[in-house]
């Protein structure tokens, strides 16, 4: 076994609570939405950490915290050993160059009044030393080509592109500064499968070439598996299971992970009427008012009295080989796991 690569991103006890207010004239805070509620992990140079989990479980908020686009309620994020959560001004700008993001929503993240060339080339305007002014147009065209867009469309506006095409513009911009870490928030969700394959091959090629580290947020578990070295499963603001891709996909120990894997639609219609699934009962609880003890207990078919009383810590237990936040963690072979 090779020694683990150097840690490039260190996240400890990261918390983000959004105030929940009531009243129209006088806003009173009546609680908090616990979007990210104590998340810790390391990311190594050149590695891909996949992040999966229910809609609203805090993945995008986590991404924004890592980018310092949101200030954390508490906890720390260190890039190359330096705290980004408190950085300001010039220091923040330097650190941000190292960590770039490809956004989830290609519709709102692209300025409708800027041309594609301006959008993709914008990082060069902020970080003027990366590419000399004369070479920028050429560089932007290269980036467009690399993500499968026609370089001749450099003067077009976002509304002239389809949803999938717009997502590629965001990817091109994320790649512009060749950062060490790229956070991809659903980078291929809006893309059709053929372009998705091109983009994933591209991301993997760039990773090898520049030793990039990725945090790869996606709903498609087969996509996450293909690209990730390790996978973190989130539920209601917390990581409930984390491990190497084979550990998560072949020997998941947390009931939520097991349900998630069994719900993956299989791209083959044969036998679809008889396929067995773990269908989760109940609604995802509100992050403003998570259940006591284990956050998953209201939907868990294995829940016992202790689950309401004690919060299960994210740790390795006797029944498993990787950290899981379940009192009764136990490997289960999920038939449908892709």
């Amino acid at each position, binding site marked *: 076994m090779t020694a683990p690569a150097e840690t490039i991103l260190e996240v400890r006890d990261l918390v983000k609570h959004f105030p929940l207010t009531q009243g129209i004239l006088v806003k009173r805070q009546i609680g908090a939405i616990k979007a990210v509620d104590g998340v810790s992990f390391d990311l190594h140079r050149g590695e891909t950490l996949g992040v999966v989990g229910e809609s609203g479980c805090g993945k995008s908020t986590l991404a924004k915290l890592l980018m310092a686009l949101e200030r954390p309620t508490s906890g720390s994020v260190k890039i190359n050993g330096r705290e980004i959560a408190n950085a300001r001004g010039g220091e923040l700008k330097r650190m941000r160059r190292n960590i770039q993001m490809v956004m989830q929503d290609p519709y709102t993240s692209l300025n409708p009044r800027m041309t594609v060339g301006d959008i993709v080339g914008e990082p060069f305007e902020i970080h003027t030393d990366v590419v000399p002014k004369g070479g920028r147009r050429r560089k932007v065209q290269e980036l467009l080509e690399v993500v499968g867009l026609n370089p001749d469309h450099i003067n077009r506006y976002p509304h002239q592109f389809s949803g999938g095409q717009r997502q590629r513009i965001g990817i091109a911009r994320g790649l512009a500064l060749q950062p060490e870490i790229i956070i991809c928030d659903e980078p291929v969700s809006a893309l059709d*499968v053929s372009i998705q394959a091109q983009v994933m091959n591209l991301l993997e090629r760039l990773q090898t070439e520049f030793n990039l580290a990725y945090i790869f947020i996606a709903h498609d578990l087969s996509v996450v598996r293909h690209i990730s070295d390790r996978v973190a499963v989130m539920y209601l603001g917390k990581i409930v299971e984390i491990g190497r891709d084979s550990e998560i*996909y072949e020997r998941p120990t947390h009931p939520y992970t097991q349900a998630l894997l069994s719900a993956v639609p299989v791209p083959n219609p044969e036998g679809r009427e008889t396929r067995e699934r773990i269908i989760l009962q109940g609604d995802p609880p509100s992050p403003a008012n998570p259940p006591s003890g284990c956050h998953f207990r209201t939907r868990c078919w294995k829940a016992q009295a202790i689950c309401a009383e004690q919060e299960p810590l994210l740790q390795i237990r006797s029944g498993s080989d990787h950290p899981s936040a379940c009192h009764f963690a136990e490997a289960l072979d999920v038939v449908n796991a892709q």
Partner: protein
Amino acid sequence: MVEVLSEPVGGGSYEGSLLEVDDLHVEFRTRAGVAKAVNGVTYSVGAGETLAVLGESGSGKSVTAQTIMGILDMPPGKITGGEIRFRGVDLLKLPEDQRRKIRGEGISMVFQDALSALNPVFPVGWQIAEMFRVHRGASRSDAKKKAIELMDRVRIPAAKDRVNDFPHQFSGGMRQRIMIAMAIALDPEILIADEPTTALDVTVQAQIMGLLADLQRERNMGLILITHDLGVVADVADKIAVMYGGRIVENAPVHDLYRSPAHPYSKGLLESIPRVDMKGQELYAIKGLPPNLLEMPSGCAFHPRCPYRRDNCVTDVPPLYPISGTRGSACHYWREVLDDGSR
């Protein structure tokens, strides 16, 4: 006399399917030239049936849907040919007031871009309630009650507490569920869902697809599902239309297409799916770029990217060759492709 639409359009008797798109052509007049976004799309969906529309990004799936809904941006968009028959009546010939009535109650749509489709300055509950106030004349409090019910139904946690929240306060997936709530509010006969679960995780996706299936059963609703998720398609579709460059390049019942695609583009799609045994390897990807709609390739639009290409593909546009009564492929060499099967 002005005809009042007390009866559904077309009444009860019509031949063919509930909704039929027939040889539809749509162009965009841009400064750079004319973009032929939809070049003869033909598909149909019956009551209780699920049609999945698959296809390259930019192939005209959403523009076709917008044209069905009557919400195409005109200009720059222009419908240059074809018919859209709902219960046998060509919607393209109806006056706007009649179309408005059909929108929402007859045919309704879940939009691809959930955030931009929601109005950022109004609470989401208000926006859902508005449907009942405008279309059904419901009172404020009744409409709000209905809105909460619908938010519950699409599994927004603590719907009652969040009914006054604004769109930006919800996650991407929750916004998408709110869009679904608005689309099903008036119990439409046809629901067009444009990438409805793209932003959702699989457990909620499974629930939403289940919800759509329930609605479909209850109301015998026709569903047009636009998606690029070949897993979801395999799960729920009765039939599939594959689009490329503004055309249908293959249509087929779901089992036939997955078993043996008859067009090189559909075959390429199926082969691009990541599989466990491909981990660490490069994924199969269809080479090249999507076509430039301003300058469509001659002959078969797929020819610059096609591994089956022969000389005549560059000059002859392939018609949609019938393979069987329910299947067709717009490829000169469909037999060869069909014989190769999928991997």
